[in-house]
């Protein structure tokens, strides 16, 4: 087995993306993801790639649109305010069925907010974010290793479905350094037939449908059929100590790893509790969650946001178990003790609570 090396999340994802075939990076500085462009600016020229610091996130995403439309493996990264600016472009990319990889290292909002870790862009990411009926495939890693692994795989997924893929990380994952085993360099085959300048036939990439014979309705139905297929094929989740659990935490990303440790702690005190962690946030693993929720006393949804993940949890659980929320607002991270306190208390007391 290869040795682990210590790498910062932002740098590990950048290196892994390059190993997954990424040769074009377009981005604009914003904390807490600045190490991604800094790394790419050094590393991409070494592997024959191109780094461009765009003049804005609006430009970044449209550069990605252009590069990916011509079949290149291109990506951008940003943090919450910048991702908001990209939403128009992401809608175009989804509408024109172009693959693309977007990294969101979330920070506190709304507005300029702060630069601390947050999970408050959940709904923006999983429910569309821009205009029109579309979905972005969302992966939520919880360690630097996973961050690297999903960055590596996301290009294959994006190209397979001709759909944008977003990796939803946060300030903690971007900034921590942990041991990571980097994947091998991938051989990238020629650009696909549909790509601009690459096909045997003339290719037009567009999202405008005005003619009666190629109506937008037909296009939307086609997109929805694709989304149903993706929903069948991508259902990523992790179950942690769920077998005998009477209580269940639902959490993702950074929050989930803190919950795992809280669970170990509570189990030492006799509380039978487990974790259900969605990894693909869209498609959300509703069915698996429901299965897990069925016999539980209570589900605790723990997130660094107000009632966002919980909305999907409620859709999945369909009333099969009572749900309580523990929310942390404004770009601050849970500590284990407050999760343990909240859950231990609420097992005897009932009531909702959020920590400022």
């Amino acid at each position, binding site marked *: 087995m290869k040795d682990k*090396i*210590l790498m910062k999340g932002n740098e590990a994802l950048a290196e892994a993306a390059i190993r997954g075939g990424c040769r074009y990076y377009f981005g604009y500085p914003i904390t807490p993801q600045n190490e991604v462009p800094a790394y790419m600016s050094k590393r991409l020229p070494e592997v024959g790639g191109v780094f461009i610091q765009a003049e804005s996130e609006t430009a970044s995403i449209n550069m990605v649109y252009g590069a990916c439309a011509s079949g290149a493996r291109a990506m951008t990264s940003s943090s919450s305010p910048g991702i908001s600016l990209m939403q128009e472009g992401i809608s175009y990319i989804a509408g024109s069925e172009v693959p693309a990889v977007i990294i969101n290292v979330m920070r506190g909002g709304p507005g300029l907010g702060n630069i601390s870790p947050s999970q408050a862009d959940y709904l923006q990411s999983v429910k569309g974010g821009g205009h029109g009926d579309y979905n972005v495939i969302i992966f939520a890693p919880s360690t630097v290793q996973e961050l690297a692994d999903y960055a590596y795989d996301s290009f294959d997924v994006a190209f397979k479905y001709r759909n944008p893929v977003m990796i939803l990380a946060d300030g903690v994952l971007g900034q921590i350094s942990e041991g990571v085993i980097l994947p091998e360099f991938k051989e990238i085959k020629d650009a696909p037939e549909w790509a601009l300048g690459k096909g045997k036939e003339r290719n037009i990439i567009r999202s405008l449908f005005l003619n009666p014979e190629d109506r937008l309705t037909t296009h939307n139905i086609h997109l929805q059929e694709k989304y149903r297929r993706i929903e069948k094929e991508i259902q990523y989740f992790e179950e942690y100590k769920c077998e005998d659990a009477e209580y269940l935490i639902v959490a993702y990303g950074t929050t989930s790893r803190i919950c795992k440790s809280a669970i170990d702690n509570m189990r030492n005190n006799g509380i039978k509790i487990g974790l259900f962690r969605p990894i693909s946030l869209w498609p959300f693993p509703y069915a698996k969650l429901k299965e897990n929720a069925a016999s539980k006393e209570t589900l605790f949804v723990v997130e660094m946001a107000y009632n966002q993940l919980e909305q999907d949890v409620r859709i999945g659980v369909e009333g099969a178990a009572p749900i309580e929320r523990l929310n942390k607002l404004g770009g601050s991270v849970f500590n284990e003790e407050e999760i343990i306190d909240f859950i231990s208390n609420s097992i005897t007391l009932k009531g909702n609570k959020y920590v400022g």
Partner: protein
Amino acid sequence: MLNKIVLAGFGGQGIIVAGKLLAISAMNEKKETTHYPSYGAEMRGGTCSCSVVVGDNLIASPIIKNPDIALIFNKPSKEKYEPLMRHGGIMILNKSLIEDTNLRGDIKKYLIKASEIAEQLGSVKSTNMVMLGAFVKATSIIKLDAIINSLTIAFPNAKEKAIELNIRALEAGYNNLE
């Protein structure tokens, strides 16, 4: 075993790289570890810190509320972290830059004239290595050899001479702990 370690001082004292070196050494010793820097606007105004967590299992949170151990490089950091220390925690103070070294009664205190020792060795820039050496002696969480062996990984572009200076600084920290 789980150790929550904070390194704090001002920018330019090599806080972040010292923390990285510590984390790399822990990883090479087959321990689980995370390194988390203070970042962005937090860094303005000159203060700088990082958190290193070392344990046997996957580290839950890299963010430290109550440190077990703190390597304190300057006075403002002492004032910031003293009230946050876990009961019975360890503080290692850079005596060169901290006049008043009185601490809460329950904290185990170690002193080292880190900046002066570094200066005598040839560069105040190795203050961070002196502090790390002192940390090894005070806590024995990581062996001195493990840190020395990780130097070339942490500083891949460093010249042999610089590595040698770092080793001497680590050893001086180890041997001069008060």
